[in-house]
């Protein structure tokens, strides 16, 4: 019997050891992607400066020609023709200068000399032309092709001069050239590893010309970037124009926010790009951690299916706007770590217009408006939201606030894929949305008739809106465009197309005992600028 018992226990241990052996004996896979066996990043090796950044989810694919999902890694691995500085002003990048013809249609970019991709090929006018041609090539079905829809003809004038002819004047043409989708990829590497080659591009191979080189990606675990020692073309708005000061950046994928906070407290993670609001107080009290807070290019709002009754009536939409107590929401749902929204764009944008009166809290006025619209006792509607914890809490508060004017709502919660499908099918009535974007043309994407039924999920078809958007997008100058967008917002506020609720706050936490010269970039959540960042040994 003792023998059998020993055999039983032995089998259990053997199984465990076999599994352990399987798991830790990893070698490189066929595609070059490492298996799960390599040690997880913990304390960096001696002398090597390793910055560890936590992210809650990683991009599915780093080929930004083929996917609409980009991460902060794109800003570190790639250079763009034009960059944006700390104040989101356009500054030279790969292009050291540019000029526009008098009719606003021909843009000429002078390419900086001496730049090269991580594979050693030169960054020149030919490389830049290849990238934009690839994005616009229907065979790649690139989601970002729409950003360059005005590009009619791209031309290499000489090795370091690139010329774009637009189909019509479009002063905002420069804006998409600064985005993470516009990082110039090495043509040679894309041909070799991309969709026409080994199909490894975006997972095992990623080749740009930025301050960091892509090194490895262990899915759902980490992405590793190493310093580009040849980098000498840092933008004007950073102090260090040469190679970065850290040797390696490890982006750890840690889905659970409380685990991220625990790892930061234990000193294994140096930067949290998104601090959960419930952890802000705790981290702020930690003397080894500095919490950065600031406004963010985003907006959260309650939207209506404006082609369905009773939301077709502007009085109903205005009543819903007046029924929302934004201050209470910001303090109750977001613990004060957000700002009340009174407009359709984030306040950081130059085109921003606000109207506190139209978005005031006035239950009595809201009831009167509903009565005039023929709903003295309110009405019933569904209230849909994505399953993000804050959005679900918000939906519950909205439900309670709307109940005060007699509007009874039934909350419906969807995961991200389900929510996108739900909106696409046009099943929504009232629904919570949040966008993160730094260009006023977000209003065109979400509210122009041509975008119906998706992404114009508000189902807003209005000739005045279309005209104002068209005028703004084809304005002869950026100043004129700004004025046109301000006019558009005043019209949207008057029509109460949405009920803006909150402007999110960007919150990052950094181990100040280890990381020096950290500065929070105000634009998107994941964008980080590491040219000047250093680590204490």
């Amino acid at each position: 019997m003792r023998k059998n018992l020993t055999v039983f226990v032995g089998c259990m241990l053997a199984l465990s050891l076999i599994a352990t052996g399987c798991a830790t004996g990893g070698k490189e896979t066929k595609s070059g992607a490492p298996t799960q066996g390599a040690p997880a990043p913990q304390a960096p090796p001696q002398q090597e400066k390793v910055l560890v950044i936590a992210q809650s989810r990683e991009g599915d694919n780093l080929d930004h020609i083929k996917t609409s999902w980009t991460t902060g890694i794109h800003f570190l691995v790639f250079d763009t023709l034009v960059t944006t500085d700390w104040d989101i002003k356009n500054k030279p990048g790969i292009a050291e200068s540019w000029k526009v013809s008098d009719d606003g249609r021909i843009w000429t970019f002078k390419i900086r000399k001496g730049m090269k991709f991580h594979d050693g090929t030169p960054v020149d006018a030919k490389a830049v032309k290849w990238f934009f041609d690839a994005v616009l090539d229907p065979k790649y079905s690139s989601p970002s092709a729409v950003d360059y829809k005005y590009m009619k003809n791209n031309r290499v004038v000489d090795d370091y001069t690139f010329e774009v002819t637009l189909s019509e004047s479009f002063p905002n043409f420069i804006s998409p050239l600064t985005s993470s989708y516009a990082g110039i990829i090495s043509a040679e590497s894309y041909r070799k590893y991309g969709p026409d080659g080994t199909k490894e591009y975006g997972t095992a191979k990623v080749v740009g010309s930025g301050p960091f080189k892509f090194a490895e990606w262990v899915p759902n675990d980490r992405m590793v970037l190493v310093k580009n020692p040849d980098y000498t073309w840092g933008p004007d708005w950073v102090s260090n124009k040469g190679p970065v000061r850290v040797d390696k950046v490890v982006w750890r994928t840690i889905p659970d926010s409380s685990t991220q906070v625990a790892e930061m407290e234990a000193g294994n993670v140096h930067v949290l790009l998104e601090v959960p609001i419930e952890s802000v107080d705790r981290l702020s009290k930690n003397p080894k951690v500095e919490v950065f807070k600031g406004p963010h290019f985003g907006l959260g709002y309650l939207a209506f299916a404006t082609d369905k009754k009773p939301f077709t009536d502007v009085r109903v939409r205005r009543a819903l706007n007046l029924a929302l107590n934004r201050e209470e929401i910001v303090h109750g749902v977001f613990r004060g770590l957000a700002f009340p929204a009174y407009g359709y764009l984030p306040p950081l944008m130059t085109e921003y217009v606000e109207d506190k009166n139209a978005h005031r809290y006035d239950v009595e006025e809201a009831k009167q408006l509903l009565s005039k619209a023929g709903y003295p006792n309110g009405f019933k509607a569904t209230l849909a939201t994505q399953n993000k914890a804050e959005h679900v809490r918000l939906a519950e508060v909205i439900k309670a606030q709307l109940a005060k004017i007699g509007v009874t709502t039934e909350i419906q919660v969807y995961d991200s894929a389900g929510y996108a499908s739900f909106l696409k099918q046009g099943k929504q009535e009232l629904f919570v949305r949040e966008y993160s974007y730094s260009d006023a043309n977000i209003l065109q994407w979400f509210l122009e008739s041509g975008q119906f039924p998706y992404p114009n999920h508000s189902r807003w078809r209005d000739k005045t809106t279309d005209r104002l958007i068209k005028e703004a997008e084809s304005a002869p100058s950026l100043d004129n465009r700004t004025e046109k967008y301000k006019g558009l917002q005043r019209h949207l506020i008057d029509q109460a197309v949405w009920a803006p609720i909150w402007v999110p706050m960007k919150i990052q936490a950094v181990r100040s005992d280890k990381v020096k010269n950290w500065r929070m970039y105000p634009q998107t959540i994941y964008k980080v600028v590491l040219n000047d960042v250093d680590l204490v040994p």
Partner: protein
Amino acid sequence: MLIPEIIGVTLAVFLLMHLAPGDPVALIVGDHAPPEVYEQVRAEFGLDKPLVVQYWVFLKHLCRLDLGRSILMNRPVTEVVAGALPVTLQLTLTGLVVSYLIGVPVGIVSGVKRGSLFDQASMFGAIAFACMPSFWLGSLLMLSLGVRFAFFPVSGYGSIRHMILPSVSLGLGGAALTARMMRSSILDVIRMDYVQTARAKGLPESAVVYKHALRNALIPMVTLLGLRLGWLVGGAVSLETVFSVPGMGRFLVNSILNRDYPMVQGIMLVLALCVVIGNFLADLLYSLVDPRVELK
């Protein structure tokens, strides 16, 4: 039976995933892409074809051991599974070992010393641990032994030390159930005539328990072993998220949320195979524990 089971699993997963609302292509192309780009990407992945055709294509590829390509990650599913499966197996099997190494001895002693202080304390502990969700226990262990005392890595994967907290978190709940099961099994056996006869022969109590009672009392534990595998895989899914372990569970959850159909089908197929093989191995163990069982 294996082939019908596999076809049943793939069919059920295929239908459930396609019946659920959601669209992976909408996530790839984002809000701004024009409809023609959306349709083109759908066609690239064969999602424009009727469901019957899509399922047939999946089965045809499966015959060549090709699980397809992830829609979102643009990687072969087999490559992802090959990387993640050993991780989940390691977590699951070490959890299983923890649950038996703790649960079996505690159950034996509790059964033999029925009513003693040890019995009462251990059964109280068993109920407490059985009630604790593994992810909650994992968070507690992480904050205390990982952050506060720094005995173990807080999260991540790569060494044996990284697996200790997740394995213990997973195994303790199982140990509680194992201990209760072992105790009642011992109690059933210890009252039987042949055990009384052994005592009457004047054998020492340890010999009565370990040589005579334990042989029969262990048989239900082997049955439990097979059943426990599926339960442990479920627990591993949540613990992989808590401890940032890049196993099958993490990929499965992400793929379900993003409606990455080939990934979900591939992972579910492999997990089902693991459970079937685990039960088969448990059947083999019967013959080792109980010589009356013969394998044919």
